[in-house]
């Protein structure tokens, strides 16, 4: 396949065959171990632009007329031009231009990309492929290089709707894990280019996956949470959690809500309330035991730490970041602490750092160092014997490679989990779970199959290799993933491959392990019930 083939009309640019995929270890080392990825129906193919790889993350409807198609091409170009201006894109202009102008195409980054490697090295997933397309479009259509110059710089490419529709989908085949950037000796960041391409589609053309935009950021700003939880529903959930805590532990805990002047405003990914309430319950139990002065918020947006804007749209990102800060300011808390959610960590502490000014620049930190302080300094009584099963740690990219929070979670696990073992590689060299950059929540058509079979494949391989000596289903094992989206992806990945049934590998957060080790709780906090 040639680079310029992206403009050529065909039913599909590539087809992923099962035999191309990176092999997995036992018990998935047989040819039939991989479930068949669902194909799009003929109706879906007729309605949506699906000619990239037969997978749909966005699902862009096919333009009905030639005029609409031309308008979309014009808009793409105007968006690309805006992306290169200070006024419209000061937020990322310097990193973007650096990556566009100084890549020497040495391809050293290729093998660091889990999607490229897992797919059997499909050309379109190569980390340098997307940037190359963008560079060629810029050279030909914005810089308007001469024909000779285009030939010399290898920049000739035909910009048409086929290319644009494929590029839109292709920007959602990169998890933004930025492993490729980490190995680049010149500081080029091909992950950033995927991020910037997504921005053209969202900020200029209004095109983004429904789960990120309409039912993501838009819903969060309107209803209060991307999960759809309203402030009223939150009240019911909190009552339910209090009841469940009492049932599980015998402890009567009143979860503080909207407590003015608290030391800490704790922000959870609201997905935890819905899918893993045990995580938020464990936080409440630990904070209560440690005597921490904390609160949740019931204000719109204030009870959901997520900020999907960080993956596709600077404006949606900024709106949510601002709401979070406003909520904290109104509550007069000393600081915001972010629960187990990787992207919320990065969004709130790193990216929003240069959006929030004045009195909205409220101190923000991760809850994990605080938890480490409680555990290491014996501020709560723990018995490591209660966690005596094989445990490994998944490092969420946002929290680790992109923020440098590496050791506190390990200090906790080393202290309370006698059978803790590292994956290889780990820490800042970790592999993405496969659900990064919004993938974990995108449920569009056959995309969940792609993210299990392709983007999550290297993570599955790592987990299986880590537990290979105890792989028998007779031995319960635990993957600790201190991130909501990573947990969602691991849940779907394990479901896809029936990992729990075949290998008895469970997953969960970090605080659950701490609560499980608390000596004043009689029954095990972790219930080993698959959900």
């Amino acid at each position, binding site marked *: 396949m040639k680079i310029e083939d992206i403009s050529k009309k065909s039913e599909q640019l590539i087809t992923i065959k099962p035999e191309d995929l990176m092999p997995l270890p036992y018990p998935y080392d047989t040819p039939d171990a991989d479930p068949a990825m669902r194909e799009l129906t003929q109706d879906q193919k007729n309605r949506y632009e699906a000619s990239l790889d037969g997978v749909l993350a966005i699902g862009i409807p096919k333009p009905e007329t030639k005029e609409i198609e031309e308008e979309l091409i014009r808009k793409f170009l105007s968006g690309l031009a805006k992306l290169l201006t200070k006024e419209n894109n000061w937020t990322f202009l310097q990193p973007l231009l650096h990556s566009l102008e100084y890549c020497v195409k040495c391809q*050293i980054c290729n093998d660091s990309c889990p999607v490229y490697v897992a797919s059997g090295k499909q050309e379109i997933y190569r980390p340098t492929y997307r940037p190359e397309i963008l560079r060629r479009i810029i050279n030909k259509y914005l810089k308007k290089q001469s024909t000779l110059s285009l030939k010399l710089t290898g920049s000739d490419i035909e910009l048409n709707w086929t290319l644009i529709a494929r590029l839109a989908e292709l920007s959602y085949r990169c998890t933004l894990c930025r492993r490729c950037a980490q*190995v680049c*000796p010149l500081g080029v960041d091909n992950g950033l280019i995927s991020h910037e391409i997504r921005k053209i589609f969202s900020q200029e053309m209004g095109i983004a996956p429904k789960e990120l935009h309409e039912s993501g950021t838009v819903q969060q700003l309107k209803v209060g949470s991307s999960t759809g939880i309203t402030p009223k529903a939150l009240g019911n959930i909190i009552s339910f959690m209090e009841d469940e805590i009492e049932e599980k532990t015998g402890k009567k805990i009143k979860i503080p809500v909207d407590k003015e002047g608290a030391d800490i405003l704790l922000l959870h990914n609201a997905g935890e309330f819905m899918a893993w309430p045990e995580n938020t319950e464990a936080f409440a139990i630990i904070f209560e035991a440690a005597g921490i002065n904390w609160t949740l918020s019931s204000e719109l947006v204030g009870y959901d730490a997520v900020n999907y804007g960080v993956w596709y749209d600077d404006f*949606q990102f900024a709106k949510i970041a601002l709401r979070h800060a406003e909520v904290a300011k109104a509550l007069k808390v000393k600081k915001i602490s972010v629960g187990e959610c990787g992207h919320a960590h990065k969004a709130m502490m790193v990216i929003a750092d240069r959006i929030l000014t004045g009195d909205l620049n409220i101190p923000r930190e991760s809850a994990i160092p605080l938890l480490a302080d409680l555990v290491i300094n014996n501020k709560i009584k723990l018995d490591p014997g209660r966690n005596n099963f094989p445990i490994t740690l998944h490092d969420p990219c946002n929290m680790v490679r992109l*923020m*440098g929070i590496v050791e506190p979670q390990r200090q906790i696990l080393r202290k309370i989990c006698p059978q803790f073992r590292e994956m290889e590689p780990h820490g800042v060299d970790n592999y993405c779970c496969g659900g990064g950059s919004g993938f974990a929540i995108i449920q569009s058509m056959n995309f969940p199959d792609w993210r299990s079979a392709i983007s999550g494949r290297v993570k599955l391989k790592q987990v299986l290799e880590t537990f290979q000596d105890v792989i028998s289903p007779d031995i319960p094992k635990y993957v600790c993933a201190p991130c909501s989206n990573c947990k969602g992806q691991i849940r779907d990945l394990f479901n896809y491959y029936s990992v729990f049934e075949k290998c008895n590998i469970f997953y969960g957060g970090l605080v659950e392990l701490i609560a499980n080790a608390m000596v004043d709780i009689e029954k095990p906090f972790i219930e080993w019930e698959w959900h």
Partner: protein
Amino acid sequence: MRIFLAILTYFSYIFIIAMYTIKAAKYLKLPVHLRWELYPVMHEENYQYGGSYFEQVDWWTRIRQKRYLRGFLFLLKEYFVLGEYFQKHKAYWYFLYPWHIGFILIITFHILCFFGAVAMVFGITISSSSQSITGIVFYYAILFTGVVSFVTGAFGSVGLLIKRIYDENLKQYATPLHYFTYIFTFLIFISGFYAWYFIDPTLSEYREFWKGLITFKFIDVGCGAATHIILFNLFLVYLPYTRSMHYITRFFGFCLIRWDDEPNMRGGKLERKLQALLNQKVSWSAAHIKSGKTWGEQVEEPKMRS
């Protein structure tokens, strides 16, 4: 010929310095961006495992120990080792490394020629049997850097050309300019080698030529040396149009982007810059963006409501 050579040399050096300065200034004038760091950050205390100040409770209350020199030395070391390439793509490194060493040494060679010429103006004889230690040091340093650069550079140029042609991963993304560059650099290095090996084994012509340049008493050089000088000068003019600025922007990229973990503190200089940027008007046209309003105005509404 002597005038032509001199003018071409003056022009090419002034040209490359001016172009690189303009490009560097353009890069540095770009607005401050949102943070987008990647760990390990070399100036951080726990850089060995990629730790950051976010690992501490109440991190904003603690004094940060930043070691900029460590980052600088790391980048400097990488110029001479190209460690990532060695680890990740050895077959490429075997050619890339000599090519880069060729560049580093040929630049050093010209710098030494310049300072050697200054020394000559002050009456120091540069030769292996010079009465002055400085003259002997210059003699061998010029000879060493020149000859090693010609050999390694020529070898690397050919190797990279072959690699770009036959390595499937590289071939797909190679452009005619890549091939041209390798051939061009090969000609530069091989012409230097030819002039040294067959015509001027002590490289005295280069030293005399440079002395002429700084005293404005231009001299004629032999055909071999002249060919090399012309090619090298043309290369200096060509360089700003390639991605060669990465020798410099690599520093910028690491210091200003990849390792930029500077927090925005209330009332600080950074905050003032950000406030100015937030006052800029945007023209994005998606429905959820108010085209023509400032960044600040985009995010002001809706106000909090329960």
